[in-house]
């Protein structure tokens, strides 16, 4: 081995603790990025696989929103139109009552039309008995793997809840699939004959989809024209890509947060490498004197960094994979709450993850090490340059860096203010953070000088030394302060954002939940409530203690590649109950009842760019119809957005009396619990319904909200963890480096306690400074997150709500982290006999 390389390796081995901290930093950074990427990707892949398996070879689909269309369209398409590669589908979701939290996708197909369209089902092998499959309404098939996992045998029963009704089906057979895509994509699918599925899902006479393989776009165009009103022909991927598009913002947010953790990790690397260089300045000087050139030194330091980076990255991949096992559940739950039903089983590292983790880990390490390596290479041939010179250069550079920082902050703010795209907004946030970090050395310098006198006055010489010590060791202390500041500002920023969001959401909930009891049939998370049995609303209206009821009808309309949500409500008599308006026509209540007028929710407005006064075309059973938007309401239920219509108009245009939910307004003085009991008995046994007092809805909604942000909290904690480790490393380095100084102090008569206090004081100072600097940065971050990122990502406008306690906590956290980080060096320093320390320092 080359002598230089051996020297490098020896150094790394000889400074294990220091190397370990650097490795830990990069490990945590890579782990968080890998975990988030894995979790995101697994959720995405599960969705994509099931979409692919279910799409099969289909090029197009015929759909008509949530209500489907008349099944007579299928014979027409197949016989009159001669489209023989066409497969009818009835589908829905069923909760498994024996397997908590398992949701089956029920797919009703015509086996004889399948293999033309969906090789997944055509390629299925098994022992299904066609006589039972076609002859019974309760026979289902599932994949062999799924049956094995649940320990089910053909003939076993499954208890399901379908649209609020309990149903029992029989496992008629299991299927083995030929293609891996089907094995995964069909894992949570119950396959039924289309007749049985219609019966189970209550879809008699209707189809949800016809998947078809069309020869070319020309045929698609002519076919689309011949389809009846309200029925759409769309490319097969349109629906899934629209869903993916909607969840993109959420996934991007997670990725950005995870990169933040890596950023903090990079600070650690920088810190560790700088320290490694500084410690060996004398050695490098001597090496240079012996004829080793600059490039060789540069290479040596970078090589050391690469080793640290590689070890850290590989460990990070492993830890990330472990972390992802837990994270994927959180991501999936949020996606299910907010976007679409997806079930993820298993998280597997792919070459992509490996490449991404290694590239980011090594990249961050090498970039972070570049500056120290350069510093090392510039060591003059003799070891004349003292540490003081280095710190002097650091101090001299501080104002210039601060200037650059101000520039970065300005640029970042500008991007945040004008950026139309989410990605650009994130770049803005990173610039903001980097800019703040660049300003740290100068701020540390100024504040340490400014504080030296008061600290001296308060704590005597150790206080003064503690304050000045930070500026004396600026190259090290500034990095530690910056890392901690960024971590704490993330805590503040994200915390304020979540608080603001929650506060806004709560206010909106209070305004929206105007009724006393809400009644709906239970539904699978993410799906609209199934229709109430006919006659139920009337029955509820007649119950004693009910002042009045309002009804809600929820459906989806096929429009472009998307399925727009339509909500039809019994709107009160000029009563604004349940609505908070962002903007609107003063006469909107009258217009909603008397004209073709609709409201849209705020996310709908930002997604589709339609506001008050704009026309909006909706597909109705009688063809496309133009409506006028008369108002925009706040709505935090879905970032997809929704169109809201008066129930009277909906009923007359759609000729549909279906109701999905009933809101009961109780007469004054009615006891809610007793009212619910009376409502229950009025409903009878026809349908399992949930009766929820508004307080319960409020609680459940906030639970879902908190659940959604669990992942955010977890990421925030991880970033903080990385920062604490960083500060620990930096302070440790700082303290150890100055061990000789401490030894001199001890030798001069300072007590152990005094030295300990000096080191702790320094930590305290660094922590306090980080915490204080983190406040403005964190608040800026919060403003950017609530006002720009959330707007861009979800279309929700949020008020900023700052809890002073949170700020206090943040500063306390910074101080605590710093004290924790200072505790060990303080103990160690104080415990080392001065003689040893003095010897150690002599090279």
């Amino acid at each position, binding site marked *: 081995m080359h002598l230089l390389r051996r020297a490098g390796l020896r150094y790394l081995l000889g400074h294990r603790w220091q190397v370990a901290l650097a490795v830990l930093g990069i490990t945590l950074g890579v782990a968080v990025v890998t975990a988030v990427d894995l979790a995101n990707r697994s959720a995405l892949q599960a969705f994509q696989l099931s979409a692919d398996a279910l799409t099969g070879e289909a090029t197009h689909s015929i759909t008509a929103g949530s209500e489907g269309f008349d099944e007579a369209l299928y014979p027409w398409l197949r016989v009159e139109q001669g489209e023989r590669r066409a497969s009818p589908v009835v589908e829905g979701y069923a909760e498994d009552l024996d397997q908590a939290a398992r949701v089956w996708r029920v797919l009703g197909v015509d086996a004889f039309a399948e293999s033309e369209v969906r090789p997944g089902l*055509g390629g299925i092998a098994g022992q299904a008995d066609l006589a039972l499959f*076609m002859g019974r309404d309760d026979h289902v098939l599932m994949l062999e793997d799924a049956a094995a996992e649940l320990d089910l045998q053909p003939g076993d029963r499954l208890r399901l809840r379908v649209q609020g009704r309990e149903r029992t089906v029989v496992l008629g057979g299991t299927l083995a699939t030929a293609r891996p895509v089907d094995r995964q994509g069909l894992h949570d699918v119950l396959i039924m004959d289309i*007749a049985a599925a219609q019966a189970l899902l209550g879809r008699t006479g209707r189809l949800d989809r016809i998947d078809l393989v069309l020869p070319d776009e020309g045929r698609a165009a002519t076919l689309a024209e011949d389809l009846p009103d309200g029925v759409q022909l769309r490319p097969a991927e349109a629906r899934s890509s629209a869903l993916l598009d909607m969840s993109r913002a959420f996934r991007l947010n997670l990725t950005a947060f995870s990169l933040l953790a890596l950023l903090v990790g990079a600070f650690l690397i920088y810190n560790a490498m700088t320290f490694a260089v500084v410690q060996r300045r004398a050695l490098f000087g001597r090496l240079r004197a012996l004829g080793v050139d600059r490039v060789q030194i540069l290479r040596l330091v970078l090589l050391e960094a690469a080793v640290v980076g590689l070890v850290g990255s590989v460990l990070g991949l492993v830890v990330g994979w472990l972390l992802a096992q837990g994270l994927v559940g959180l991501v999936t739950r949020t996606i299910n709450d907010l976007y679409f039903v997806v079930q993820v089983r298993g998280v597997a590292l792919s070459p992509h993850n490996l490449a991404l983790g290694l590239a980011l880990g090594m990249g961050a390490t090498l970039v972070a090490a570049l500056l120290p390596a350069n510093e090392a290479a510039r060591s003059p041939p003799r070891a004349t340059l003292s540490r003081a010179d280095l710190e002097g250069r650091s101090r001299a550079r501080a104002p210039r860096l601060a200037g650059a920082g101000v520039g970065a902050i300005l640029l970042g703010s500008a991007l945040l203010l004008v950026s139309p795209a989410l990605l650009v907004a994130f770049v803005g946030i990173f610039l903001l953070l980097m800019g703040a970090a660049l300003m740290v050395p100068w701020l540390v310098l100024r504040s340490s000088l400014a504080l030296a006198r008061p600290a001296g006055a308060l704590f005597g010489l150790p206080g003064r030394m503690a304050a000045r010590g930070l500026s004396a060791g600026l190259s090290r202390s500034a990095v530690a302060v910056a890392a901690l500041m960024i971590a704490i500002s993330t805590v503040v920023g994200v915390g304020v954002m979540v608080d603001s969001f929650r506060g806004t959401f709560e206010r909106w909930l209070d305004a929206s939940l105007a009724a006393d009891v809400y009644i709906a049939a239970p539904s699978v998370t993410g799906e609209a409530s199934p229709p109430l049995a006919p006659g139920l609303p009337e029955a509820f209206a007649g119950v004693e203690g009910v002042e009045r009821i309002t009804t809600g009808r929820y459906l989806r309309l096929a429009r472009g590649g998307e399925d727009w949500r339509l909500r039809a409500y019994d709107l009160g008599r000029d009563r604004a109950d349940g609505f908070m308006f962002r903007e609107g026509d003063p006469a909107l209540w009258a217009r909603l009842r008397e004209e073709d007028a609709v409201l849209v929710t705020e996310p709908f407005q930002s997604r589709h760019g339609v506001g008050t006064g704009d026309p909006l075309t909706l597909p109705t059973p009688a063809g496309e119809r133009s409506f006028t938007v008369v108002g925009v309401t706040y709505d935090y239920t879905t970032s997809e957005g929704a169109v809201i219509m008066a129930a009277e108009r909906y009923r007359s245009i759609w000729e549909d009396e279906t109701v999905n939910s009933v809101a009961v307004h109780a007469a004054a003085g009615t006891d809610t619990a007793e009212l619910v009991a009376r409502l229950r008995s009025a409903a009878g046994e026809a349908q399992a319904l949930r009766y929820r007092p508004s307080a319960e809805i409020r609680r459940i909604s906030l639970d879902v909200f908190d659940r959604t942000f669990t992942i955010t909290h977890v990421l925030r904690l991880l970033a903080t963890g990385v920062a604490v480790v960083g500060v620990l490393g930096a302070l440790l380095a700082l303290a150890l480096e100055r061990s000789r100084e401490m030894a001199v102090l001890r030798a001069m008569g300072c007590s152990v306690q005094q030295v300990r206090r000096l080191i702790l004081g320094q930590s305290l100072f660094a922590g306090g400074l980080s915490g204080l600097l983190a406040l403005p940065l964190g608040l800026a971050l919060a403003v950017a997150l609530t006002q720009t990122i959330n707007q861009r990502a979800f279309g929700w406008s949020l008020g900023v709500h700052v809890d002073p306690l949170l700020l206090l906590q943040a500063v306390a956290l910074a101080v605590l982290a710093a004290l924790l980080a200072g505790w060990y060096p303080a103990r160690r320093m104080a415990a080392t006999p001065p003689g040893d320390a003095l010897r150690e320092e002599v090279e």
Partner: protein
Amino acid sequence: MGRARFFPALLLAGAVPIAGLTGCGDREPPEDPAPMSVTGALSGEDQGAGLTRVEGPEPLVFPRDHGPHPGYRHEWWYVTGHLFDGEDRHYGFQATLFRFNVAPESTPERPSAWATDQLWMGHFAITDTQGEAFHHFERLSRGALELAGGQPDPFRIWLEDWSLAADDDSPGPFPMRVRFQQDGFGVDLRLEAEKPMVLQGDGGYSQKGPERGNASRYFSWTRLAAEGRLTLEGDERRVAGQAWKDREWGTSALGEDLAGWDWFSVQLDDGHELMFYHLRREDGGVDPISKGLWVTPAGDSRVLGLEDVDLVATDEWQSPDGQATYPGGWQLTLPEEGLALELRPVVADQELRAGVFRYWEGALAVSGERAGQPVSGHGYAELTGY
């Protein structure tokens, strides 16, 4: 009872891939044929429960018996024929609709219009003798939502846009319009009966085995004048010729020792027709239950027994993928009539292999002598279990 033997072959073929169920035309069958077994339902060796059986000679009732009998396991309308265009170019065609009851014990009164126990299958093939080409297609459909079905009066049997239907308001099926079209191939023919219908077996009661109920109803039209249009690779031409139609239904099952059968129909230029088949046993022998029918120009018929006809294969043909080797030509003699015929496939490869069931069904050229006079004609052969 020739075609009745079709079904045991399904059993012999083993599991039937659903994948293949919808494979049609000249498409490659799926690489990994995965059997979602419909054979159990189609064969039902022991499970005749819920199905009606043919249990003895009974007078046929028309027009009712031209239409479907959904209570029986299987039923078919089987048309084959020979056509010539203006340039005297020869074409063979097969246009067949099958009906199966696949779910005899299904739940009654189901809410969905898709609910049915009826499965329909169509086979359509054209043999282009001069072009030495054979084109075949298969369709399957449930008998629901008017996708496939049948009615006796006015007679109409259909699977999507493939149909056999009375061409005018006649009470019976003839004159019949045969319309089968797919992917640039098709026939649109009008069939007129030149001879009355003949009953097979004992007045249409065709015994399939020793047990009671193991039988079918079977009758045929052995000479139909055909006229209309034939489409080959998109080119339409006027054609005329002769066709043959078999009608059969039942819930019968066959003995397990049978390997398959060789079935022949022959239309001679002198006005006679002959139907004859060998039921081949696993041990290589021919089952004594094998039979035939001889029809005179006047339309009189008599049943032939195995011993009446001497049938010897003279050649063989292997399908391209090597999966099956069929006989490729025959010597047939019927000493009582002084009949000695040579039967030769007009095209060697007339194997239907793209669909659920693999078998050879093809046009034959017939030549030889009867009572010392040279005679010629055309025929069809069905070879299964190879």
